[in-house]
C-alpha cells in the first residue's frame, strides 16, 4: 500500500483509553481519504441523537489522501463532528500542517470521543499517544497555545482552540498554523471535551507507488499553476481580488446584513487598496505554490501590532461589507481577534451584522448592547462585538449562539433579520442574484456554505467544467448542476486538494496523479461516483439527525428584491425555491421529501448505514 498509512487512532477522553485499528484497503478505494473517511466514520461512530456538545459526539480528523505527497496545493485536512451550530453534519477543512504530521505519525484518521474532566491536550508522538494536562493552556489564545506546546515539544504540529471553543461559542473554530477549520463550530466540540489541543509528531515516510512520476507530475502542475491568472491575482491580492467585480459587475456582495448587493464604500476594503499598504508578504497552506494568504501587519495607530494571515474575501464581507464597515484596519483587527479567540469570521460577522440590523430597527437598544452604538458602519463596534462574543459577555452571549438561536431568544420579530440556512450564517454570495447558489446553500450538508458545491464561480461566470451558458438569474435546471458540483467538490475534500485548484486539475487531472501516488486507476466517472457516495453519506447523517425538508429554506431576506446594482430586482421566490429543491432531489435520485431510497443506498454500497 502506498500513500496511506492504513491506521485509525481512536481516543476516548472519558475512559482515558487509546486504540488503534487497521483501515481496510477497500475503504481507501471507496472513500479515498479526508472527506470520504469523515462521511464514513461519522455515520459509524456518531448517532443522530448525539448531543453535539456531549461526550457521545466524536471529533474526527482526516487528512486528504494526497496530503504529504509533493502534489501542489494538496495540503488540506478535514475535521468533522456533529455541529453545535446546525445540530447536523459538521465539517471544516484546514490548511495547517497537522494533517501531514498525523499521516507521518502513521494515522489516516483520528477519532476523539468522550469528555475529559480537566483541560487536556492530546500528544501523539508516532506510536505513543498521551493525554496530557492542559490547565496551563486553558484561556490562552490559539497562537499562544501553539507556541507554548511547541516549546514543550519540538518538531510537532498543533491544532487547537481559543477561548471561543472553551466558551462553547457555537461557531468556534479549530486552528492549526494560524489556518482555520472555520465553519460549524467544531472548536466548540473540542471545548466541550475540554480538549484544548492536538499535537502530533510524525516521522514516517510517505510512500508513493512511482515517486519519479509523482515528481514529473508535480513539476508539470507547478508550471500550470504559476502560469495561471489565479496565481497572479491571488499572489498579489489574495482571495478578495474579485471583490470589486462582485460589486460592480454582479451586484451580489451581501451588504449591511443582506439589505443590499453592492457595498458603496467597498474601495476602502478592496485588497487593491490595502494590499500595497498592509501586506508584508504571502502566506501559504502546506504544499501550496500559489499562496492566497497575506501577512497583514498594522504598524501604527490604535490597532498597531495587529498581525494576521488575511484578510480573506469572506471576511472582507462578513466583518466588512455585512457590517457596513469601511475601515480595513477595524476589519483586520476583528479578523485577528477571531483567529486568536478561535471563532469563525463568517458567522461572527453574520451575527454582528444581524445585531446591527436589529439595532437600527429598534429591536435592540443601547440598553441591550452595554452602550455600544451598534449602527452599521461603526468600526469600533465591530471590534468590540468580537470580544463580547468570544467571551460571551452581555449581548455577545446571545450572539455566540448564532443568528438562528439568537433570534429565538430576542423575539420581537428578530427572525426576519436572521440570515441563515439550517442555522448557519452564509458566506459572501448574495444568492438573490446567484440562484443556483441559493439552492446550494439549502443542499449543503453543513448549512449555508459556498464550498460543498463551489458553484458560485460557475454561476457567476456562466461556465465551468462541463457546464456552459448557466444563467445565474434563473432558477431553472439547477438541480443536476448543484448535485454534480457537490460530487465534484467532495473529491477535492477527499484528496485534500485546495478548491482554488479546481479549474486546473478539474477531475481528469487526478487520474495520473492517483495512479502515480497510489496505483488506483480512476476515471472521472469513477471519481464522481465516489463523490456521490460521500454526498449521500453526509445527507444520510443529516437524516439521522432529524433533517426534514421543511427545515430547509432560505431566510426571509432572500424574498426581498436586491434594491440596486446589476442584480437589481432579483430575488428567489418561494416557488423557485421549491422548484429548485424538487429538481435537486430528482437529480440525486431521492424522494420528494429528500429521503434516500434503498435502491440508491445499495447502488452506492452504503446500505449498511441506513438503520
Amino acid at each position: 500500500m502506498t500513500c496511506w498509512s492504513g491506521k485509525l487512532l481512536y481516543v476516548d477522553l472519558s475512559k482515558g483509553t487509546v486504540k488503534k485499528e487497521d483501515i481496510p484497503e477497500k475503504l481507501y478505494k471507496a472513500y479515498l481519504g479526508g472527506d470520504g473517511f469523515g462521511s464514513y466514520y461519522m455515520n459509524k461512530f456518531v448517532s443522530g441523537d448525539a448531543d453535539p456538545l456531549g461526550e457521545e459526539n466524536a471529533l474526527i480528523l482526516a487528512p486528504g489522501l494526497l496530503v504529504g505527497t509533493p502534489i501542489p496545493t494538496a495540503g488540506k485536512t478535514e475535521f468533522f463532528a456533529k455541529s453545535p451550530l446546525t445540530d447536523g453534519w459538521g465539517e471544516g477543512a484546514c490548511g495547517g500542517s497537522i494533517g501531514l504530521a498525523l499521516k507521518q505519525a502513521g494515522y489516516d484518521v483520528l477519532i476523539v470521543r468522550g469528555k475529559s474532566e480537566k483541560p487536556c491536550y492530546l500528544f501523539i508522538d508516532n506510536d505513543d499517544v498521551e493525554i496530557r494536562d492542559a490547565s496551563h493552556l486553558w484561556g490562552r489564545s490559539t497562537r499562544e497555545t501553539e507556541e507554548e506546546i511547541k516549546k514543550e515539544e519540538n518538531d510537532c504540529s498543533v491544532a487547537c482552540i481559543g477561548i471561543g471553543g472553551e466558551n462553547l461559542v457555537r461557531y468556534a473554530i479549530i486552528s492549526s498554523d494560524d489556518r482555520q477549520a472555520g465553519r460549524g463550530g467544531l472548536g466548540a466540540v473540542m471545548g466541550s471535551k475540554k480538549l484544548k489541543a492536538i499535537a502530533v509528531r510524525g516521522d514516517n515516510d510517505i510512500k508513493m507507488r512511482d515517486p519519479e512520476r509523482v515528481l514529473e507530475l508535480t513539476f508539470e502542475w507547478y508550471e500550470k499553476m504559476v502560469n495561471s491568472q489565479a496565481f497572479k491575482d491571488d499572489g498579489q491580492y489574495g482571495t478578495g481580488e474579485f471583490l470589486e467585480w462582485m460589486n460592480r459587475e454582479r451586484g451580489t456582495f451581501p451588504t449591511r446584513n443582506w439589505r443590499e448587493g453592492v457595498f458603496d464604500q467597498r474601495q476602502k476594503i478592496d485588497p487593491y487598496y490595502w494590499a500595497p499598504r498592509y501586506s508584508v508578504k504571502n502566506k501559504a497552506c502546506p504544499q501550496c505554490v500559489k499562496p492566497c494568504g497575506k501577512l497583514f501587519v498594522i504598524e501604527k495607530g490604535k490597532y498597531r501590532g495587529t498581525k494576521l494571515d488575511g484578510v480573506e474575501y469572506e471576511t472582507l464581507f462578513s466583518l466588512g461589507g455585512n457590517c457596513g464597515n469601511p475601515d480595513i484596519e477595524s476589519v483586520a483587527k476583528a479578523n485577528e481577534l477571531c483567529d486568536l479567540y478561535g471563532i469563525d469570521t463568517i458567522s461572527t460577522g453574520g451575527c454582528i451584522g444581524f445585531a446591527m440590523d436589529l439595532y437600527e430597527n429598534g429591536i435592540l437598544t443601547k440598553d441591550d448592547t452595554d452602550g455600544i452604538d451598534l449602527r452599521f458602519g461603526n468600526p469600533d463596534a465591530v471590534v468590540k462585538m468580537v470580544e463580547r462574543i468570544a467571551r460571551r459577555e452581555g449581548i455577545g452571549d446571545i450572539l455566540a449562539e448564532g443568528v438562528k438561536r439568537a433570534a429565538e431568544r430576542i423575539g420581537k420579530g428578530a427572525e426576519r433579520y436572521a440570515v441563515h440556512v439550517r442555522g448557519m450564517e452564509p458566506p459572501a454570495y448574495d444568492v438573490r442574484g446567484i440562484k443556483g447558489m441559493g439552492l446550494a446553500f439549502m443542499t449543503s450538508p453543513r448549512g449555508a456554505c459556498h464550498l460543498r458545491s463551489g458553484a458560485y464561480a460557475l454561476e457567476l461566470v456562466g461556465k465551468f467544467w462541463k457546464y456552459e451558458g448557466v444563467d445565474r438569474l434563473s432558477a431553472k435546471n439547477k438541480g443536476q448542476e448543484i448535485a454534480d458540483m457537490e460530487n465534484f467538490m467532495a473529491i477535492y475534500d477527499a484528496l485534500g486538494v485546495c478548491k482554488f485548484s479546481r479549474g486546473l486539475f478539474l477531475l481528469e487531472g487526478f487520474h495520473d496523479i492517483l495512479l502515480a501516488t497510489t496505483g488506483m486507476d480512476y476515471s472521472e466517472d469513477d471519481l464522481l461516483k465516489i463523490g456521490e457516495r460521500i454526498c449521500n453519506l453526509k445527507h444520510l447523517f443529516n437524516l439521522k439527525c432529524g433533517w426534514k425538508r421543511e427545515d430547509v429554506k432560505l431566510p426571509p431576506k432572500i424574498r426581498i428584491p436586491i434594491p440596486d446594482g446589476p442584480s437589481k430586482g432579483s430575488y428567489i421566490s418561494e416557488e423557485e425555491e421549491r422548484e429548485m429543491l424538487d429538481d435537486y432531489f430528482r437529480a440525486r435520485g431521492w424522494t420528494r421529501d429528500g429521503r434516500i431510497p434503498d435502491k440508491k443506498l445499495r447502488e452506492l454500497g452504503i446500505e449498511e448505514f441506513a438503520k
Partner: protein
Amino acid sequence: MYVKVNADRCSGCRECELVCSTYHFGVSNPKRSGIRIEKRGLTEDIPRVCVHGNGCRYECISACKFDAIKKDDGGIVRIDHEKCVGCGACARACPLNAIWTFEGKAYKCDLCGGEPRCVKVCSQGALEVVR
C-alpha cells in the same frame, strides 16, 4: 554554486521539503529533506539550506569525526551516509542551521547534481541558484 535564500519572500508552504526528499530518497518526508523551512510563529518563514562554503568556513567538515562529510571536486559538500553515524556534531557546528539528523543519519543539501529541485518549485522567489 549554492541556493541563495531570500527569507522575506518565503510563504512557508514547504513544498521544497517534500520535493527534496522525494527526489533524493523516493519518499516524501520533510525530515529527510536537505532544505527546511524554520517557522517562527505567524510572521517568519526562514528557509535553511547549505551554502557550500559561500559564507561559512566548512564548520561541518571540521566537526565530523568520522570523515563522513567532504567537499567534492565540484565544491559540493556531501554527506556519506555509509560513514555517517548521526552524532549531530555537524548540525551543531553549522552556522546556518542547515544540517539535520534523523534516524541516525545527517541530512543536508547536495544541489541535486546542479539543478536544485527546491528552486524549481519555489514560486515566490525565496530560493535562487547562484552559480
